[in-house]
């Protein structure tokens, strides 16, 4: 049975969070680290955009700057996400591709299935909404993004806990095309959150998702290795650079 490393809930700034995910990916690729599941928050609050998005198109950058919200480009595709410190839980799962279904679609379904199971533990009946979302009654409660490189799969995703929807959409630019086929009046109607559905604490959400992600897995609690920490420090320089974040 594969031994997983579980990294307990941490908080970092946006650049460090993305750098740590990538450093772990490299370490797993080089067989220096076990496959890893980590949980994290974003401090300060941040906006991340997908690999193929334009920062200026997707994000109200001046407003983010004035409100101290950090903007970062992910290595994964997908859309722009507002990461509120109090409003969401983020996870990443990183392991050799052989541990997951070969089909990208199926691997999303399997990994998101764990999140859905976790939400079920706190009384929320969620469902997988291909390609990469989890929804409750058609409203998004979790977004997920995956990359595969050099034999390693990295998927990170967020679970909306107590979202300040008004603030989210004041920081993101959402085009009318984006919501055109969703049968909804506005972008705000697209999302829901854990607290609006089940009055659990953030800790209870975390424990439910942790339990679902570790179920039937052999695991040990772990931390970033010195090599990973050193590499993450290097990668922070990339993730904090305008040449990366405003490359498109």
């Amino acid at each position, binding site marked *: 049975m594969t031994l997983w490393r579980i990294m307990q809930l941490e908080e970092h700034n946006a650049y460090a969070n993305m750098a740590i995910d990538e450093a772990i990916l490299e370490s797993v690729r080089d067989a220096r680290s076990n496959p890893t599941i980590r949980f994290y928050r974003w401090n300060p609050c941040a906006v991340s955009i*997908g*690999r*193929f*998005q*334009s920062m200026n*198109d997707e994000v109200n950058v001046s407003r983010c700057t004035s409100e101290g919200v950090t903007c970062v480009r992910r*290595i*994964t*595709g*997908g*859309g*722009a996400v507002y990461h509120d410190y109090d409003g969401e839980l983020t996870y990443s799962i990183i392991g050799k591709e052989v541990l997951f279904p070969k089909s*990208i*679609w199926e691997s999303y379904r399997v990994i998101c299935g764990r999140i859905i199971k976790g939400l079920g533990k706190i009384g929320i009946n969620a469902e997988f909404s291909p*390609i*990469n979302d989890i929804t409750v009654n058609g409203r998004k409660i979790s977004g997920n*993004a*995956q*990359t*595969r*490189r050099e034999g390693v799969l990295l998927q990170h995703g967020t679970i909306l806990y107590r979202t300040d929807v008004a603030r989210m959409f004041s920081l993101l630019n959402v*085009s009318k*095309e*984006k919501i*055109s*086929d969703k049968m909804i009046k506005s972008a705000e109607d697209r999302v829901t959150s854990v607290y609006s559905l089940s009055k659990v604490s953030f800790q209870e959400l975390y424990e439910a998702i942790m339990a679902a992600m570790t179920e039937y897995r052999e695991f040990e609690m772990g931390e970033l290795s010195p090599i990973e920490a050193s590499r993450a420090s290097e990668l922070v320089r990339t993730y904090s650079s305008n040449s990366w974040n405003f490359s*498109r």
Partner: protein
Amino acid sequence: MHGESKLKSPGEKLISIKLTYWDRIDDIQILGDFFIHPEESLALLENSIKGMSAGASEAEFAETIRLTADRNSISMIGISPESVAKAIRMAMS
């Protein structure tokens, strides 16, 4: 000339095209919330469009993208050659 378009096809992700063209396409950016694996290969898709006639049909753009994706084992998720081609034509209309 500069052209832009946005297209959200049912069941797919949002595609945004920004291009410059005269009789041929000089430059193009394919943007959006889709997924492409490996991510670096988006540049191959964009480069395959550069230099094509601005008068090329939607089918011709789609075929070029499909061939480039097939030859380079590029996985396109939430985006298709047909929708990119349609968005390219929209950007020049």
